[in-house]
């Protein structure tokens, strides 16, 4: 392990300890009514994982998320390569896709619900709506940033369009595409959780909203903790791979 990654590891550890300390301090300050202590939350989380109903909710969320992410990747890469290749469509559509990124997409959810009905497909569609945009944008810019010499070589070798993608564009664009996948991963997770929070009978998002109704602080904090730890852990891993890919390129 190099010095730099050791330093990063130390920083992360210091950060985690500091966050837990702040949490504990807040708990001492506001007390039992509003907050559960870190230890109590951990204990409740362990208990939660042992129950069968929680496993159902967790599985539901993970399934919706997995399908949504797979679809986001496939659609995002296809559209991204198309827009990257075809300069005119790219120039026309890119600003529109960028502005979709900035709208509060939650307001579009009722339309998706009306179109797909309550259930898995609406959740998946909403996850895709969030996750596909960064994947498209990063793929597009990756294709644009490919070194012209590589493309010229491909043309000299008379590669077909699909061969060009397979042997030249894809390998050259991998680092940047991976960054898109990393951002897309996070946004897909946000999308599927938001969908569950608004209208759903199952999943972690539903559990969170249910916790408000029951005023079950421990439940809310435990589920929030599970989501945050999962998101942070996976994203740290992806970030690590991302850095390595960029250094190699």
């Amino acid at each position, binding site marked *: 392990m190099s010095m730099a990654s050791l330093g*990063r590891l130390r920083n992360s550890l210091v950060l985690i300890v500091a966050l837990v300390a702040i949490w504990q301090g807040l708990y001492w300050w506001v007390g039992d009514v509003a907050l559960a202590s870190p230890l109590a939350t951990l204990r409740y989380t362990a208990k939660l994982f042992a129950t069968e109903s929680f496993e159902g909710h967790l599985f539901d969320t993970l399934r919706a998320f997995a399908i949504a992410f797979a679809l986001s990747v496939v659609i995002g890469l296809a559209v991204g390569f198309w827009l990257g290749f075809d300069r005119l469509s790219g120039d*026309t559509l890119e600003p529109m896709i960028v502005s979709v990124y*900035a709208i509060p997409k939650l307001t579009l959810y009722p*339309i998706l*619900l009306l179109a797909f009905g309550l259930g898995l497909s609406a959740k998946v569609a909403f996850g895709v709506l969030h996750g596909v945009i960064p994947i498209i944008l990063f793929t597009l810019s990756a294709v644009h940033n490919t070194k012209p010499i590589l493309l010229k070589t491909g043309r000299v070798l008379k590669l077909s369009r699909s061969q060009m993608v397979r042997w030249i564009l894809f390998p050259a664009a991998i680092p940047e595409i991976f960054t898109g996948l990393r951002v897309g991963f996070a946004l897909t997770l946000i999308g599927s959780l938001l969908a569950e929070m*608004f209208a759903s009978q199952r999943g972690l998002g539903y559990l969170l*909203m249910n*916790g408000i109704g029951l005023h079950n*602080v421990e439940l809310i904090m435990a589920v929030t903790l599970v*989501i945050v730890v999962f998101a942070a852990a996976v994203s740290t891993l992806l970030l690590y791979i991302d850095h390595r890919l960029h250094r190699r390129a």
Partner: protein
Amino acid sequence: MSRVAWYRVFVVGGAIALLEVLCLTGIIDKITMQAPHLIVRDLYRMLVSGRMNGAIMKTLGNTLLALGLALGVGIITGALLHRWRALRDTLDPLFATYYAVPVFAFYPFFIVVFGLGDLPQVLIAFMLGVVAVIVNTLNGLDRVPVVLLKTARIMRLSPIDTALRMTLPSAGPYLLTGVKLAVAYAFIGVIGSEFIMSRGGIGYEISFAYANFDNATMYPLIVLILLASVAINGVLSRWEQKLLARRGMR
């Protein structure tokens, strides 16, 4: 107008026309969606009658409050972190993974702690925006050329003069990127949390209309939000491009 701009108008116009045809022929039924011209009519009536003004003002007020907080806290924190290297290095993993964590997941927790008022919404919008401002402030400050700061020292500028005449103009485009993101996030945070659970605001009205199958209210409000966010984002993006172009970075 350039050719690409015409194509853009054509794509958007085509999509709306397609929806219109699908709605009028009944392929999309009335319960699912109203025809676009009816949505525009309802939106006009709604705005003229002023029955949504309360909700609009509430949402705008909370968004502005969250935006102001995110900008103030973000820029000051960014400037301080720029000076304090050790803390910045420690916080770096937090900034790197921050946007992977669904901030909205904290909303139920905030409701339980602070009650179902405006505070949880403003807090969510603030949390979404503030890190983007910090990161872009740091980025901008990192890129201020050293020669400018040396020139400032030769001219014996006071720290305030240095900040106003050297650092700020130089870091400007990056700060603006932070502002642009913070505006979008403030909107998303406030409207999103109103939508999930609240007592008022545009997001609340949309979810209320959805629950009552009131398409005549829901679609115009959705269109209003789409138009507002696209317009604001467009203006800020254009300004950003202009600043970047002036600095020769395009």
